């Protein structure tokens, strides 16, 4: 099978406009008889479901949480990018496009990314119209801040809860359509199979997590907006329930998986505190606007951070990357932290942490401004610090409180201790320009697709992409498919394809329940996570990846012999839900290792130790790997690799430099 990216002709800045004006439309009367299934209700899913329903399609939406408002988009903290240039600092659609391609280490499609940059401005308009309370200046205009990997201020935010506010906006639009009867909402439902008829996606099998019953749902098209799979690492900043199951079922049903090994390790997370740890908590990248990252210059430093004098501190990001300093992209900041800790300069009890220190900017940036605002002459350092703390509280209050809650240390007084953690997956289901997977009628949006972020996502771009896909892209591109489906009558869920799919699911569940071994699902998940983190995490090498593949296979075999799932099938049974998800992670983990093993270069978040510059930076191989890896599932965890070549016509490829 040949990969068709369906990128429209023409110059990059006219492709989307051209596409929109020439794509086939579905007339309003026909929309009413077309049924769309949307799985997942995060930013991508909620915005897509609401918008499609507004247009007149009949929509069924599914989420595994108890309410669509709980999707993990809600936890995004820092902000959302848009090329509004409200700050008059030289931003433009081209710059956002350029920064995103470069930030992704030249492994994303130009046409998609340009489209993303184009619609970014519409997103802000739409959200404001919904009543999303973005931060504002005294004059009443919107406020912006900077994020990593850019030199302009284009990030819109609502304190440290931007994801929450954007999701609640999309959720309210979705609930409005539920109230109007245009969307049927199925919460506490998990999609467990794609139903294909004549090669096209025609519905799903969903499991009602409360009753345990399997349900058949027909749709003329199926949209997967099910987020990322960072939880394959067990410990990540993802929610406990975030999973790959829907995407993995789609993959096994024929959808290619793109760049599975591209994982984003976020540099600023609260370090692991013990073996019982169930998840990691992110401290927003926005903190790097004002926090300076450092480690002691001396190994095995025993002094408290505030007692270490300035000249004995190593501000290693400012030292290595003077142009971007603490605001280098995430992959670079993470690797630099790992490098210092591996070299023995780490801090904290585990020595696997670095300091994120706000004191300097509280005094010099905020304290001084505030002092001159209030007309305080020659303020002492203590006065400046107190004034600075007030401003820090306004900007980051909720994050500082959260940090204190978790660690019992007060970041207003002592530097935060942070360490990188798994945060986002750039990989995902391979999609073409229209967001369609390799299965006709099956689409993937948001983090679930292999995305516009290449090998590394810039901060504040995930919210942008999720909403772009849902509000502004799928409403057009879906029409291209559905306009050819207007004659397809709703297919009865008694159709044999539905019956077979349901049987497949119930066999799988019965198999899991029948094992009745000794080990908990959790213990398998934890073990898988350790393998992935050690061998397919921040740094990878051929030997480790090969070992990982063997280990994962052995673990998977053991899982099917020895796992113990309590309770029964026909009741509310969170352990059974988890078992299904871990079973899929055990397959995905192997594929990620294969992907990493085959990509013999370093790029973005994918760092192969064999391929680095003398200075320890990622060494790309554009000759051989300027492409997307798209994996086709064959029987019994065998895969075939396909490649989509990436062409750069508007951006000159060069070594990424933030020095």
């Amino acid at each position, binding site marked *: 099978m040949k990969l068709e990216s369906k990128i429209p002709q023409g110059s990059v800045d006219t492709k989307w406009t051209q596409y929109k004006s020439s794509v086939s439309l579905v007339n309003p009367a026909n929309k009413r008889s077309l049924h769309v299934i949307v799985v997942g209700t995060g930013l991508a899913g909620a*915005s897509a479901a609401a*918008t499609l329903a*507004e247009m007149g399609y009949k929509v069924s939406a599914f989420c595994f*949480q*108890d*309410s669509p*408002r*709980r999707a*993990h988009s*809600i*936890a995004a903290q820092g902000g959302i990018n848009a090329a*509004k240039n409200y700050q008059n600092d030289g931003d433009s659609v081209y710059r956002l496009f350029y920064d995103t391609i470069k930030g992704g280490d030249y492994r994303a499609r130009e046409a998609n990314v340009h489209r993303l940059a184009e619609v970014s401005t519409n997103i802000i*308009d*739409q959200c*404001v*119209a*919904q*009543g999303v*309370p*973005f931060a*504002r*200046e*005294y004059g*009443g*205009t919107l406020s912006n801040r900077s994020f990593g990997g850019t030199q302009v201020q284009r990030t819109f935010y609502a304190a440290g809860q931007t994801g*929450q*506010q954007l999701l609640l906006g999309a959720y*309210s*639009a979705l*609930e*409005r359509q*539920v*109230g109007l009867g245009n969307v049927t*909402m199925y*919460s506490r439902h998990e999609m467990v199979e794609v139903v294909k008829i004549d090669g096209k996606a025609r519905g799903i099998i969903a499991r009602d997590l409360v009753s345990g019953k399997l349900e058949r749902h027909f749709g003329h098209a199926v949209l997967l907006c099910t987020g990322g799979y960072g939880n394959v690492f067990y410990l990540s900043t993802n*929610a*406990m*329930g975030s999973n790959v199951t829907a995407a993995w079922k789609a993959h096994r049903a024929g959808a290619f998986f793109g760049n599975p090994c591209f994982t984003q390790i976020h540099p600023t997370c609260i370090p692991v*505190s*013990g073996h*019982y*740890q*169930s*998840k990691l*908590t*992110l401290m927003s990248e926005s903190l790097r606007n004002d926090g300076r990252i450092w480690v002691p210059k001396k190994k095995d430093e025993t002094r408290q951070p505030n007692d270490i004098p300035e000249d004995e501190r190593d501000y290693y990001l400012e030292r290595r990357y003077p142009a971007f300093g603490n605001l280098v992209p995430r992959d670079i900041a993470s690797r630099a932290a790992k490098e210092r800790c591996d070299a023995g300069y780490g801090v904290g009890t585990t020595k696997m942490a670095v300091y994120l220190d706000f004191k300097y900017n509280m005094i010099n940036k905020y304290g001084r401004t505030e002092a001159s605002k209030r007309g305080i002459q020659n303020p002492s350092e203590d006065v400046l610090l107190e004034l600075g703390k007030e401003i820090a509280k306004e900007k980051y209050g909720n994050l500082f*409180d*959260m940090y204190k*809650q*978790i660690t019992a240390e007060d970041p207003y007084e002592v530097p935060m201790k942070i360490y990188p953690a798994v945060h986002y997956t750039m990989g995902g289901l391979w999609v073409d320009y229209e967001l369609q997977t390799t299965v006709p009628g099956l689409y993937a949006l948001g983090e679930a697709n292999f995305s516009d972020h290449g090998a590394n996502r810039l901060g504040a771009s995930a919210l942008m992409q999720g909403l772009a896909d849902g509000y*502004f892209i799928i409403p057009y591109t879906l029409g291209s498919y559905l306009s050819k489906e207007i004659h397809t009558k709703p297919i009865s869920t008694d159709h044999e394809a539905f019956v077979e799919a349901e049987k497949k699911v119930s066999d799988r569940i019965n198999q899991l329940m029948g094992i009745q071994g000794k080990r*908990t699902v*959790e213990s398998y998940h934890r073990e898988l996570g350790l393998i992935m983190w050690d061998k397919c995490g921040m740094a990878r090498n051929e030997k480790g990846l090969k070992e990982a593949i063997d280990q994962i296979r052995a673990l998977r075999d053991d899982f099917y012999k020895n796992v*113990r799932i*309590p*309770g029964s099938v026909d*009741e*509310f*049974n*969170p352990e059974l839900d988890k078992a299904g998800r871990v079973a899929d992670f055990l397959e995905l983990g192997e594929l990620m290792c294969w992907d990493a093993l085959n990509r013999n270069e370093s790029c973005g978040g994918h760092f192969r130790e064999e391929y680095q510059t003398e200075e320890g930076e990622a060494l790309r191989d554009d000759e051989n790997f300027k492409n997307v890896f798209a994996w086709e599932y064959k029987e019994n965890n065998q895969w075939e690799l396909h490649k989509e070549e990436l062409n750069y016509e508007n951006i000159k490829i060069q070594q990424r430099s933030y020095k």
Partner: protein
Amino acid sequence: MNINLKVWRQRNQNSEGRFEEYKVQASPDMSFLEMFDVLNEQLIEDGKDPVAFDHDCREGICGMCSMVINGRPHGPKQGVTTCQLHMRSFSEGDTIVVEPWRANAFPVIKDLSVNRGAFDRIIASGGYVSVNTGNAVDANSILIPKEVADEAFEAATCIGCGACVSACKNASAMLFVGAKVTQLSMLPQGQPERQARVVAMVNQMDAEGFGACTNTGACAAECPKQIPLSVIANLNREYYKAKLNGK
């Protein structure tokens, strides 16, 4: 640290529930939910049914976790959700009573899990601005004073967990409804539907079986996002204005 737990166990919505007692070894740096993870692993290894409880993001924002700990939703600390409550807030040998949210409008699904669908239906009845995708004007053409934006934001931080309902002796949902009504009635975008919205939301709230507010203030005291009680004053005012206008 050794902790004694008294946990509400209930098979499903229609069955009788009862308390069961457990002993758990916890560490002070664990979150309350991680302590439950340890308990559940123990139970599964012993061949017993683990305790069902709702949780997802574990960073205090999704609003899914919902435990009443010693009679207080989200436990003894102010301004945190159950997932952010750490065992260092308890002492060696403590006996902790853990129950689900209790309100007729939130039926128990199993053990500590409840159904909060009523909140979604209240939002669906009017908790939105009716603006279809594509209809928006340029974001900066709507100027909003910083103080107004900040106050609207404060109300908008509600995570819909239902602690307010569970804390209220009347199982009233007015803090939840008041927060959304406050946010949208303050902002210029919310003006066209201002009166219809509050009436529809209050009608739906009543229909769901929540009680009437008697201003005890327990909701705001237990709210993990510290939504102030004044949002209920706003709700009252908005509602009376709308009703006296014949909405």
